[in-house]
Structure formats: C-alpha cells, structure tokens
C-alpha cells in the first residue's frame, strides 16, 4: 500500500474505526438469533442417541479407536435402515450431571475422532452410507488431548471423509462448534435443523476476543451469522430442516421423522451417482467454499 507524505494512515484508520465502533454498537440486536442459540443448547433437545432411537429399527454401537480409548463424546455404530444399513456417527451430550460429565459435554478428545475414522472406513469397506449428526460446543480443550494430537485427529478425520467412496450426509442437530464439529461434516450433503447453529467459534469466546467483553455474546452470534438461515444464504448448508413447533425438544419423534425423510431423499439423490462422480462433486462443493476478490471482482 502506497503511503503519502504527511498522511499518517494508521492514525486515520484509528479515527475512522472509533467512529464505526460507535455506529456498530448502535446496531439492531435481533433477538431471534439468540433464541436459536438457546434452542440449539436446550437441555431437553434431542441428542444423537435420541435420534438413533427414533429413526432406526436397530442399532449396534461399536466402540473404541483400537488405539487408545473409547470416547463417549462421540458415538457410532451400525443402524438398520429400511432393510439396509447405515453407519451413524455423532457427537453425544449427556442429559443429567453424571452423563454430562461422562460425555464430557459432547466435547470429543482425539480418540473420539479416531473412532469416527475407524467406523467410516468400516462403512466404506462394506459400501454402507455414512450419516453424521453434529452437536458439540467444540473439541475438548485440554493438555492431554493436545498431547495426543487433537489437531491431527481432526485433520485426519476431515481427510478420511474426503476419501470415502460411499454417500455421506451430515446433519447439524444442535451446536455446530468449530473444528470439533466440522470434523464430522465434510459430507456430500450438509443439512441443518432450523434451530441449530454452526460457527467457527462460540459467540461467548468471539465476544471476549473481538469485543473484549463476553457480555456481547448476542451481538457476536448475530455478527457471526451462525443461524440456519444465515448459513443457508451463505450456501454452507444444502438445506434447512424445519423443526416441530416450538423446537425439536418439544417432540423428539417428530424431529427424528424430519431428519429421516430428508436423509432418505438425499441418499436417493446420492446413490444415483457413481462413487467417482460423487467424490468429484464433494471436492467441488468444498472447493467453492469461501468468498474472495480476484482482480477486483468478488468471487464465491
């Protein structure tokens, strides 16, 4: 950037910023966004195992990463689905204090992601489509988790999903928190329940970093555009699934039916395509993610 003599750009920028900050704080706070954040975290919201119970005639949970441990924050297994089979993998939160602790509030450790990879590869071997259900505040922040390679575990899970030759469908059912959520969402089709959220960072953490004030979480949530409507507009999700009136927690069975119907439709679409083309389209989909300017033009 060229600088002109006598013009102290940084000072100018600082002045403008201050003005804009004042303007920014005056923005209309849309209560609807925060309502969705609260619904997404509602303690009675159906979790992965609830959906599995209501969607499938049978489910065999398969455990462990064959290496270090079994992480209860991610569950997975074989589900009987209209006379055939699905591999279902999802984050799992606990409902009461004991199970919340056991499930670590749905925050996976590396062994959870490695279990997910193992199950995906098992599904791939037998041509079983993979359904992932996403509901986590994020990957577990902790010393031992870092030492066991939290970053690498998420990255290799993404890589694993990129490689799969079976159809893959992801549904964000609650909190889609950061890399910990994305790890299970590199899918051919990504859907979102109406009152779920999906974001690069929790609104609280974003507020404390950018606004230097965790109390601005509502503003952060709105600014991050983490609601299903926003994400649909940004073309990050393929479809928003309507919830039962008042939210999924009001009627678990009806919420499960919504997902099941959508899943069926997506699988029908995906199975008409050859594995090779499906993978190509998956790559094209994620290759298009992002917005930038090139030679002055904004590209999506």
């Amino acid at each position, binding site marked *: 950037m060229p600088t002109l003599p006598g013009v102290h750009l940084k000072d100018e920028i600082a002045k403008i910023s201050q003005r804009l900050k004042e303007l920014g704080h005056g923005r209309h706070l849309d209560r609807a966004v925060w309502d969705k954040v609260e619904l997404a975290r509602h303690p009675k919201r159906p979790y992965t195992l609830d959906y599995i119970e209501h969607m499938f005639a049978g489910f065999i949970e398969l455990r462990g990463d064959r290496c270090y441990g079994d992480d209860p924050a991610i569950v997975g297994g074989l589900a009987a689905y209209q006379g055939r089979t699905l591999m279902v993998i999802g984050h799992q939160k606990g409902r009461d204090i004991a199970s919340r602790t056991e499930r670590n509030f749905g925050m996976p450790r590396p062994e959870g992601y490695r279990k997910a990879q193992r199950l995906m590869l098992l599904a791939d071997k037998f041509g079983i489509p993979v359904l992932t259900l996403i509901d986590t505040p994020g990957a577990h922040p902790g010393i031992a988790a870092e030492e066991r390679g939290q970053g690498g575990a*998420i990255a290799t899970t993404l890589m694993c999903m990129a490689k799969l030759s079976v159809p893959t469908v992801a549904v964000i059912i609650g909190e889609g928190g950061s890399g910990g959520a994305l790890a299970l969402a590199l899918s051919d089709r990504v859907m979102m329940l109406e009152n779920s959220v999906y974001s690069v960072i929790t609104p609280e953490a974003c507020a404390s970093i950018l606004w230097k004030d965790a109390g601005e979480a509502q503003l952060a949530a709105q600014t991050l555009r983490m609601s299903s409507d926003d994400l649909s507009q940004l073309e990050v999700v393929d479809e928003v699934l309507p919830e039962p009136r008042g939210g999924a927690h009001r009627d678990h069975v009806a919420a499960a039916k919504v997902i099941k119907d959508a899943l069926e439709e997506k699988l029908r679409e995906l199975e008409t395509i050859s594995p090779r083309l499906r993978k190509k389209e998956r790559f094209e989909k994620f290759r298009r993610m992002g917005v930038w300017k090139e030679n002055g033009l904004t590209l999506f």
Partner: protein
Amino acid sequence: MARKVSVDISRRGGNTQNGAQSCPGCKELLSPEELRRNSMICPHCGHHFRMTARQRIELLSDPDSWNEIAANLRSADPLEFFDLRPYPDRIEEAEYDTGLSEAMLTGTAKMNKMDVVLAAMDFSFMGGSMGSVVGERFWRAAEEAIETRFPLVVVCASGGARMQEGILSLLQMAKTTCAVELMGEIPVPFITVLTHPTTGGVLASFATLADVIIAEPAAFLSFTGPRIIEQTIKEKLPEGFGLAESHVRHGQVDLIVPRLELKERLVQILGMLEGGVACALQPLWEEEARRSGRGGAFAQAFDRIKALAHSPRRPPQG
C-alpha cells in the same frame, strides 16, 4: 513437578524505544538489523524469532527464483463483519503494516535448483489467520503442484481461523484438506514446516496432513489456544507444553530442524520422496495405464484436478 508458565504465543520479547528487543531466550538486547542478518535467530542463545513470509521465502528459495501465484486474490467481506471495527478496516491495516496482500503467500521457487511450490504464512498479518484467501491460495498452490508435479512446501504460522469470515473461515479447513487429498492421489510430496505459533484451524487441517511434518525449535503448536486451555483447567500450563519438542515425544511431529539447516534438509527429504516416485511409481503407472486403457492413477487424478480447476463458479459479483 513441572514449573507452571503462562504461554505467550506472540512471544515478542520486550520492545525498547530504538526498536531493539530483549530475547525471550536469554534476555540479551538485540537490534532489528542484527536479528534480520541472522535469519531472526538470537546470536547468543539460538532462540528462533518469528519470520515474516517474505523473510521465509528469502530463506528458502534460490535468488530470483520466486514467482508468486494467486497474487491477485484479496479478502472480501462476505459477512459484512463488524466488531469494534469493520473487517475491511482490519485488512487494510494489516496490509499497511505488513506490506502483504494476505496471511499466506504462494508461488513457485527453486530450492538448491529443485523446483518446488512454496507457501509461507505470516503471523503478523492478522495473526496468520486462515480466511477464504488463505484457503484459496492453498488450493491454487496444490493445483500448481499437481499440474507441474513439483512438491509442495508450506511454512505454517497461524493463530487459527479468521473469525471475521465466520463459518467460511472454518470451511477452509475442509477445503484445504480436499486439496491435500487430491495431491495424495498423484502423489505429490507435501511437507509442512510448523513455526511459532501454529494453532487452531491450520493445525487441524493441512498443517498436520503432510507426508513429513517438520517443526522449528520451540515452536508452540496447539489446536486450542493456551488461554482457553488455562481457563478450562483453571491453572497455568506446565512448562514446555505445546512446544515442538514435546510434540515429537508425543508422536505428532517427524523432526525438528533448526532454521539454518531448514533449506538443506527440505531439499534432502524432497529429493528422497521424489527418488521413490521417480524410480518406482513411474513404471507402475505406465503398466497400469497400459493394462486398463484408462490412463492410470496419475492421469485420473490429473483429470480430476483439471476438471475442478475449471468447474463452473458462480458469476463474479461486486
């Protein structure tokens, strides 16, 4: 047992008025010129200071061999993001401060006469955060590597995702992973150099997906930021936590290479990986191509990436 220390990932050392700074390793006072002359390494204790992307390119590429690619990409503001300041404002300031167009530069270069695709991140550009431009530049670099069959070397330094691009910054993790997977199908050798600090979404995507992962001495590497972990565990982190040396012990990093040996070591490893490709896979591909009449694995992956490169994108806007 272990001493508890607070991890400062910026690790600047103290600045004094004439621009000199005290070394975080040995507390010696170092002038900017002294540091630059010495590849940003403390001459007294060997502490590796952060390098800018341009310094990194200079360190690793043969003179006059650098050709930037995807230079014309610039961040947009798809979310019209506004916290205490608007996002374009922050970008403009970063451009001004660093003289860079984004947090990653990509190009082709020669390293000891070996052709490579090279990318270097710069922590001083908005904390080396990954937004759409970093993701797209990584994609273009991978594309270049696949088309030319030059190996890809990426020097990482990142505080994580570019929050101001919201979910789109998160998705760069998926995008860059897809690019790595495509390189793997050729295969093109891919090496990352993790420098201080490499964290968040970059660590949890391409940085840890390389064929060989190198780290610089004492580089801090962590998916979650140190402050968040400290808040969670409610105490200071143990000394040495997250440092490259610890990650080697924990099996996450292949080797630590001091900066002054980095170029030579990279060339050596790339040569060895290429040696494998050149001698062993070539006849295999040819045999396979001949037998299947379909052009073999290489041709297929090549076709695929070509097709993606020219896949329809929505018409330019704005």
